């Protein structure tokens, strides 16, 4: 069956090349049947990639260890659920997932738009074909998931820390995000190649971009949650290059989602939007390159992989292609109107964009710094957490403020007096919130206090906007359903505010205490009294587990278990099993790490009390709700689009 997989991938490569080459010929020479043929090649590419994926999935579930990939990432004791998640557990499988999602998305996007946007789609097909050609080539020639061997008795298994529900779903979410950014990029490139640089490509890809952005955001939060509960160092984000690899395209896509509204309404920022959508796509491929090349030191990778140079070449070529395309079509990207006032909704979107891109480029600089210093100075130098924290505050806090001000500013030209009148209540709320926070002792961290007061301000502005909007529209339902994108966006803003509060609270106001205890001893942390009762050892065929039992009294009373587990089958890999007790009323976590179990029963404990940290995870749920509202199809809008783009035909 590996032969079938290899054959299917070879067919995918051939079809991708056909879609690329014939698609270009068809679009240039304006030939309908040839264009349809190229389009069918893209659809068929999805079909053959699906066959290859089915072969790999079947091999994983059947534990067919004649597949090298299956033997390296599963074993007989692995459940079917995790055997399937091993699909994206390694290099080759994850590349196959990339190709599958790319061709799947591409098929759907092209199929949906093929009648309304024929001229544009004729150029979108070869662009998608080009991207698919690269991934299919890598899968066929460099990193095939269908290498075979004499089947061993058992496989190596899946790394235990990856056998976790969050880690099972984190990669597919990220891929749906990363790869999804290829769709707006392809349509943008198609618009430039066809010369149809009006807003049609934006409108056609609006929901695709939003969906990709939402998946990328959710994927990152899932990864952060996994790191928090499974890796067990007490944190959730370490500014590691592989983590930043997902953050950068997300920031660029966030900027793009905002600035497209300006182009749709005012015909401005056309060049900027082209640059942003290309930047988002290039960063997503660059992120894929980072995680596989070993070119920067990361907790997630260690060895240089041969695939790195191929990815680098693809990033360079596709970037040059994007730049050349934009420069060539600059005359077609002239703005229809201009910015009339520095105090207008358009201007606030511009400020928001500048801050988001500044933050994105700051993170990119931090990621590239080691590579650049090695090239320039011959010595690798790294930038640590303080750098990222500084710029997160420098750009993130003004962004938070803008989230509150922007929605209350009128289009074209706002009056300062009206704006101040609208902001009066939110400002008052923020001042009162700040005063209360200082009174309860939250003034110890200035950035934390600023984040909290800005968050109160933003929440108040959302309330003001909803109240006034409901009065104007007649009902909240009518208000939201008439403009789902805007009000879905406000829900997402509220999610970001929750995220900011959660991050500020859990980092700026965290309490940490460390102590070695023998059985019977007690330590006190932020009002919790933790008494260590003793350790238990639990041995199973696959693992040896040691757990410390702790009785807790305080804001919560009960028993916690914390310790570590050593897996016999993984060269003695040891994972922490932290004890976490969540107080949902205060959104606070009591987080206990136990280390260094001594023969005399003594254990070293590190206890963290992290206020408001669970707002981060709640923010994820709210983020999903907001994205769904914004994504919700509007039948009237769709009919309007069809009426506009499909004129009199019998």
């Amino acid at each position, binding site marked *: 069956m590996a032969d079938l997989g290899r054959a299917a991938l070879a067919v995918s490569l051939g079809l991708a090349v056909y879609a690329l080459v014939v698609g270009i010929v068809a679009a240039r020479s304006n030939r309908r049947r040839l264009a349809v043929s190229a389009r069918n090649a893209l659809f068929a590419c999805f079909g053959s990639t699906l066959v290859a994926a089915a072969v790999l999935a079947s091999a994983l579930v059947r534990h067919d260890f004649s597949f*090298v990939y299956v033997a*390296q990432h599963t074993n007989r004791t692995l459940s079917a659920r995790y055997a399937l998640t091993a699909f994206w*557990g*390694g*290099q080759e499988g*994850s590349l196959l997932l990339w190709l599958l999602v790319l061709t799947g998305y591409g098929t759907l996007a092209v199929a949906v738009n093929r009648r309304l946007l024929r001229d544009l789609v004729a150029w979108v097909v070869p662009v998608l074909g080009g991207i698919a050609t690269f991934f299919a080539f890598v899968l066929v020639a460099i990193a095939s998931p269908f290498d075979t061997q004499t089947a061993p008795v058992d496989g*190596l298994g899946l*790394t235990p*820390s990856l056998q976790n529900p969050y880690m099972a779903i984190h990669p597919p979410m990220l891929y749906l995000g990363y790869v999804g950014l290829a769709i707006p990029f392809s349509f943008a490139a198609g618009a430039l190649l066809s010369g149809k640089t009006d807003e049609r490509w934006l409108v056609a890809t609006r929901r695709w971009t939003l969906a990709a952005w939402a998946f990328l955001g959710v994927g990152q939060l899932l990864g952060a949650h996994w790191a928090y509960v499974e890796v*067990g*160092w007490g944190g959730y984000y370490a500014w590691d290059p592989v983590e930043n690899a997902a953050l950068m395209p997300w920031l660029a896509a966030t900027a793009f989602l905002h600035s497209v509204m300006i182009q749709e309404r005012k015909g*401005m920022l056309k060049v900027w939007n082209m640059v942003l959508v290309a930047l988002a796509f290039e960063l997503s491929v660059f992120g894929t390159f980072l*995680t*596989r090349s*070993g070119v920067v*030191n*990361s*907790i*997630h*990778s*260690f*060895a240089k*992989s041969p695939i790195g140079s191929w990815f680098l070449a693809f990033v360079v070529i596709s970037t040059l292609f994007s730049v050349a395309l934009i420069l060539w079509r600059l005359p077609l990207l002239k703005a229809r109107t*201009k*910015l*009339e*006032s*520095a105090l207008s909704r358009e*201007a606030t979107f*511009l*400020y928001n964009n*500048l801050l988001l891109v*500044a933050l994105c480029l*700051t993170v990119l600089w931090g990621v590239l*710094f080691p590579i650049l*210093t090695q090239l320039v100075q011959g*010595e*690798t*130098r*790294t*930038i*640590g957490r*303080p*750098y990222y924290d*500084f710029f997160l505050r*420098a*750009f993130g806090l003004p962004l938070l403020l803008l989230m509150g001000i922007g929605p209350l500013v009128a289009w074209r030209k706002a009056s300062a007096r009206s704006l101040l009148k609208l902001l009066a209540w939110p400002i008052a709320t923020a001042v009162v919130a700040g005063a209360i926070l200082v009174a309860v002792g939250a003034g110890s961290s200035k950035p934390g206090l600023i984040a909290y007061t800005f968050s109160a301000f933003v929440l108040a502005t959302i309330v003001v906007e909803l109240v006034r909007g409901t009065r104007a529209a007649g009902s909240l339902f009518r208000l939201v359903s008439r403009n789902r994108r805007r009000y879905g966006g406000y829900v997402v803003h509220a999610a970001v505010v929750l995220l900011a509060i959660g991050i500020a609270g859990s980092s700026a106001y965290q309490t940490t205490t*460390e102590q*070695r205890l023998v059985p019977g001893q007690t330590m006190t942390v932020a009002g919790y009294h933790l008494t260590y009762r003793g350790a238990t050892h639990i041995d199973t065929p696959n693992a040896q587990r040691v757990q410390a039992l702790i009785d807790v009294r305080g804001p919560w009373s009960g028993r916690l278990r914390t310790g570590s587990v050593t897996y016999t089958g993984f*060269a*003695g*890999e*040891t*994972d*922490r099993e932290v004890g976490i007790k969540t107080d949902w009323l205060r959104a606070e976590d009591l987080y206990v*790490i136990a*280390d*260094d179990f001594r023969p005399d029963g003594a254990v*070293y404990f*590190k206890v963290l009390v992290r206020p408001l940290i669970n707002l981060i995870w709640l923010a994820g749920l709210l983020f999903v709700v907001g994205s769904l509202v914004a994504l919700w199809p509007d039948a009237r809008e769709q009919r309007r689009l069809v009426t506009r783009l499909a004129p009199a035909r019998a």
Partner: protein
Amino acid sequence: MARSTRSPARLIVALAVAGVLAVFLLYTAVAGNSTPSLTPSGLAGHVGKVQVVGAVVGPIRGDSHSAAGLRFGIRDIGSGAKSPVVQVVYRGDSPPPLFAVTRHVVVSGTIVGGRIAGTGIVTKCPSKYVPTKKY
């Protein structure tokens, strides 16, 4: 007085770029020091703060929470037994659970008298993207 009809967009962008660069310069002037990332064999001649990437060499002795610290060696990844081993004395949080002899680690600290006074240890997760060795 006639109002200017020119778009303020360019001015906004120029001011924003200037603002970002100013923030960047401020950071670099005040706090921006990067840390060299070296291999054990490349430490010679360096002083001050470093980050060292290598493989742990045993024996591992001591306790990171005690005054004497956790003591171990580190050598270049993939090098043979003849490559130089640099001694590390690490004081701080318990090392990550994956920390063990032959693990690949990143040690942050300061070079003092040819040794590394470590303040942070990160062990690398098993890579998903490179084939694991058979054992």
